[in-house]
């Protein structure tokens, strides 16, 4: 491996990725195709997020990597180790200290700031895949703002099951224009995309798409006017470690029954440290 290159990817590729990011920021919610280089981790394991992070990082950055809200999760550890081995940037587990946060499946509980970039790893960048697998047809539907098939899916689910069956990757409308896949975050995190102070970048390596939600952009879940958008709730539950309530919890089955802990481990740590 060529260790002399900062951040592993060759400079031409970084330039291409940065251009795609700029384009993505300019057209919120629109998926920008890019060539997507192969990374030394397997495709489907966050190579899109990784390419964005590697192309965005500078020496002065402080990096945080989480998976399911946890800094110690297997893939977060692998990813962080690789990134630091090719960049030497400082890392942190503390949300407030990070300038770039790469995440899979969660948005940190601690509110983000304008100085932060949140990079999402994305398996399915195309929100319409569920109802229309053909790439050409998807493009036409987006161009015509034709999301009828999504509405029908939502209607059929609501009629049969009382609500949408989509539990994560809930379709969202960005800036009143494009329908977008927010990556597999739970519905709990969906309202937290709306008007967020941080720049949010989405990378799908395998599917070769980059997209973005710029700071302070309107993000609305697809829903009927007369229906509430229902997030996951944990009524009466408190974290057994830090005592927090009203956040997203991990449910853990042990010999002595079910236990609940904060899904965001840094949020939990800060509470235990008495910083809140």
């Amino acid at each position, binding site marked *: 491996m*060529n260790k002399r*290159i900062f951040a*592993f*990817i*060759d400079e*031409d590729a970084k330039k*291409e990725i940065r251009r795609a990011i700029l384009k993505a920021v300019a057209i919120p919610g629109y998926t920008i*195709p890019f*060539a*997507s*280089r*192969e*990374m*030394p981790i*397997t*495709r*489907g*394991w966050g*190579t899109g997020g990784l390419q964005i992070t590697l192309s965005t990082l500078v020496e002065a950055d402080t990096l945080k990597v989480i*998976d*399911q809200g*946890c*800094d*110690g*999760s*297997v*893939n*977060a*550890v*692998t990813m962080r*180790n690789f990134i630091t081995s090719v960049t030497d940037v400082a890392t942190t587990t503390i949300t407030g200290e990070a300038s770039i946060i790469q995440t899979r*499946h*969660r948005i940190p509980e601690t509110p983000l700031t304008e100085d932060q970039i949140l990079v999402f790893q994305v398996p399915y960048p195309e929100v319409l895949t569920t109802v229309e*697998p*053909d790439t*050409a047809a998807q493009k036409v539907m987006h161009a015509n703002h034709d999301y009828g098939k999504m509405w029908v899916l939502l209607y059929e689910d609501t009629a049969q*099951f*009382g*609500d*949408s*069956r989509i*539990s*994560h990757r809930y379709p969202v409308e960005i800036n009143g224009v494009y329908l977008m896949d927010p990556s*597999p*975050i*739970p*519905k*709990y995190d969906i309202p937290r995309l709306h008007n967020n102070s941080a720049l949010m970048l989405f990378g799908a390596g*395998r599917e070769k798409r980059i997209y973005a939600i710029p700071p302070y952009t309107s993000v609305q879940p697809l829903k009927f006017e007369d229906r509430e958008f*229902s997030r*996951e*709730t944990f009524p009466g539950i408190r974290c057994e470690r830090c005592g927090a309530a009203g956040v997203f*919890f*991990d*449910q*853990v089955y*042990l010999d002595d029954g079910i236990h609940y*802990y904060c899904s965001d*481990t840094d949020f939990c*740590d800060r509470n235990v440290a008495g910083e809140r």
Partner: protein
Amino acid sequence: MSYVAVKGGSRAIGAAKSLLQEMISPAWKLDNNNLRDGFSFAIDRIMGEGSLYSPDLALEAFKRAGGDVMDASIYLRAHRSSCQRIGCADMVAGSRMRLVRRISSTFKEIIGGQILGPSSDYEIRLLGRNNHNTASVADDPEYPAKGGTRTDECGDFYFGSALQPLRNDNLIKLLPNHEDKPHDVTRIFPLPPYPRSAIMQIMARGETGAMLAFSYTSMRGYGDVHPTIGDLRLGYLEVTFTHPFTGGTAVIGEIKTTACETVGSFIRDPADGTMRLTTGYGFCFGYNETKAISMSILDLAMNYPGFTIGGSQVAANPEMIIHHVDAIESMGFANHFKLPHYVTFQADLQVYQKARRQEEKKNE
């Protein structure tokens, strides 16, 4: 109380990596030359699917992956991403191949003759020592053909495609070419409608098993492609590079390749209304006849979907092929399901419980 460890993951991951290294460590004791040349079909697949022509790097990847060919090809792809591109080699033509093997099943006799070369086609697959696997040509004065001992030294034959006489007689339909220069899928992934050169590139890097499976659907019922192999060739192609400033051309090496041309059914050529035969083309790094044949069938199926009968067009749909033959992508994604998914599963459970409560309310 066993709280799910926040920072305990690193040690366990380190241990898992060490266990793997220990398990496959004997690989590093194997002799490089013997392994690279003796297991050349594995090395060829790694180079082809890894999309990087380097037997030595493929060998290292083979060892690092403990013999897993798919995994090894990821090492080569990843290596590519760290290399700056200095330019593009000149285009090669399959007809210029220094042949090691070249056969045709469309004609009994072809210009240049049927050159069987090194092939497993005539092997009786019996284990153990038996009459079928002991060499029987020791006394043949004409073996080896040109006096060399290794297959890459014995050939000095160059012949055009065995289908050339049919082309000369204008019996073969030519596909229109709308491209000034080939698309480069490693720099711009194509959007539909997909240029043929892009589909061909993706297939040339495609996984042998996936290509075989898709082409097989076309062969046995979900399509009507029952092709005849017009020209199947194994050999070496010279790679030349034109200097960007001086304009001088230099030979930078040879690549070992497989190419295959298959003949399909006939079709009315829109160019002049004449009936002409259709063909498909397959090409890949190294010796891999299964893949080259499969690719030529898929090329045929995609360009002449009219041959498809019944069922849905699986092999004839570029959308289906272009997104599903790359092993780096498919095997990566299949394996990603091992990653923690407890947040999304938690969300699934809540939706499921809500639907059940709704159902119970209805039944009351």
